[in-house]
């Protein structure tokens, strides 16, 4: 079966690099991924267009400059950006398109797909390929996810992507969700994993097994929390199963070694904080902000993470980390 590899090293990896991606990094990684033959290369601040902020961390370089540079370095792959309605705007999207973005993935919390209508339609109007992206899918039952996926399909999404943003799900949870959506919509279905419980590879393969045809990954797994499905590993495993990804497995390994290894700030392992994200069901990009707050307030990161999970915070609520830390500190 044809499986489309979607590489998010330059987007989810932005979190792990504390949003410090430079033009040189963007060009070198995008060029390598393009030559290796991945279908889609995603680049933007980890929280999407407009993500550069106090709340999510300021980007070291202007995102549109990076998009333009990467766009010029890419020949065959499609260049994608992420957009979260409420953070990024249609104006940002128009700028991204002018600088060379071909695809936009419009991301909402799993139960809030209707906030994507405006942006999906606007993107289709300017001729971009448009993807509906449902985050934190562990927080909803499959019936609800189907409903939300259908909304995105009705707005004109080319495919719908389910994201296990907290790295919470085990294989059965992924399978039942993907399977339900595959059977309910006419468009293709994709999957985005986080490795907080060490399940990213297994969950991605499980998604493919029940019909997902777009799979996200990042080189060396570079991403929020414990990172994502490791792209070069995924390519190798899919090749051995016999799926056609159109990507050169060896070339991906080389890009990971040559362009990603040298820029990593810390090994992409499941440290205690990441493990707690997966265990408590917390949005992966909260991790480094939680470490900062824990240090500032003299707390154990684990306690903050568990409380964030209990409060059912959704993607983008990084600002509430301070609220939780303040509350824990002033209780005792």
């Amino acid at each position, binding site marked *: 079966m044809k499986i489309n590899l979607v590489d998010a090293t330059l987007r989810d990896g932005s979190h792990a690099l504390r949003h410090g991606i430079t033009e040189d990094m963007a060009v070198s990684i995008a060029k390598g991924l393009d030559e290796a033959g991945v279908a889609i290369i995603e680049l933007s601040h980890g929280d999407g267009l407009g993500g550069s*902020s106090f709340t999510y961390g300021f980007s070291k370089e202007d995102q549109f400059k990076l998009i333009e540079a990467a766009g010029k370095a890419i020949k065959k792959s499609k260049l994608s950006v992420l957009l979260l309605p*409420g953070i990024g705007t249609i104006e940002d999207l128009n700028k991204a398109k002018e600088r060379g973005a071909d695809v936009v993935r419009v991301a909402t919390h799993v139960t809030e797909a209707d906030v994507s*209508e405006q942006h999906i339609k606007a993107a289709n109007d300017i001729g971009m390929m448009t993807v509906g992206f449902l985050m934190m899918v562990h927080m909803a039952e499959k019936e609800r996810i189907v409903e939300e996926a259908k909304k995105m399909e009705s707005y004109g999404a080319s495919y719908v992507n389910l994201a296990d943003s907290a790295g919470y799900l085990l294989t059965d949870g992924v399978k039942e969700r993907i399977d339900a959506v595959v059977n309910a919509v006419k468009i293709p279905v994709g999957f985005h994993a986080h490795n907080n419980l060490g399940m990213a590879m297994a969950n991605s393969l499980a998604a493919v097994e029940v019909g997902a045809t777009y799979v996200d990954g990042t080189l060396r797994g570079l991403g929020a929390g414990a990172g994502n499905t490791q792209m070069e590993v995924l390519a190798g495993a899919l090749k051995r199963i016999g799926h056609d990804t159109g990507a050169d497995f060896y070339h991906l390994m080389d890009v990971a070694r040559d362009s990603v290894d040298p820029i990593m700030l810390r090994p992409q392992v499941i440290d205690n904080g990441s493990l707690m994200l997966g265990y408590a069901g917390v949005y992966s990009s909260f991790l480094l902000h939680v470490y900062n707050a824990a240090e500032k307030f003299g707390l154990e990161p684990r306690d903050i993470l568990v409380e964030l999970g209990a409060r059912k915070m959704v993607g*983008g609520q990084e600002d509430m980390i*301070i609220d939780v830390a303040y509350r824990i500190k002033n209780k005792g």
Partner: protein
Amino acid sequence: MDKIKVAVIGPGNIGSDLMYKIFRSKNLEMALMTGIVESEGIRRAASLGVATSIDGVKAVAANKEIKIAFDATSAAAHLKFNSPVLREAGVMSIDLTPAAIGPYCVPCVNLDALHDQINDKLDINMVTCGGQATIPIVYAISRVAGASYAEIVACISSKSAGPGTRANMDEFTETTSKGLEVVGGADKGKAIIILNPAEPPLMMTNTVMARVKNPEVGFEKIKESIDAMVKELKEYVPGYTLRVPPIMEGDKVTTIVQVEGQGDFLPKFSGNLDIINSAAVAAADKIAAEMLAKGGAPV
């Protein structure tokens, strides 16, 4: 004592909640609830003894005694129909839609400054719910220490985000960002909105962060300014509190506010809707007080 007669255009959730707030007002009389179809909101108003109409804005223009109209419809309706008709009829508009034809109004910040512009053609705009909750804090910071940048994150419960908000998230982020600059006094503003579906619904929270120009003014002075502003705001939004008191690190000031609604028509967790409605009624009430002082004529 006499009161100034007002109308509410749009008998939906916002309009109905406005009606209850107007009932409590010292200077406003709820003279008309008008919509364009028979609806639950129209029936509710009628059952409370309020005159109703389904002739929309025309019913307001036809009633010569009405001096102020609250527009709780949509930006498109305000721009195309309601605003021109009200202007022609000499009825002031308090615009709760994102149309923003007239100046932004955040009562505790700039209602007095708008005073010179008050006449019967006035069309003041209430920015957004997030703007009403955060602009006063940004202003409180910028008036003492300057602000080169202000950023806010408004979190509202999914249940209190209506279809209008959902279909147009950019209107919220763009209008609020602009309000942070124009009324809040920041050189650059950025607004983020998050919907959270947790049950039971979360109270509206807003995180405000600002980069100040003159940190040497000192934390005490900034904190005093914020506290004074919160006190003023509480006069018309009793459920407004600092969840996390101001924190200063270098030139960055952070605080988190919570808005609990008064539970007039909408549930208490809908602090977002409560604060914009409370601000609108507070603005109208103050304008009406001046009208009454001058014998009922536009001031």
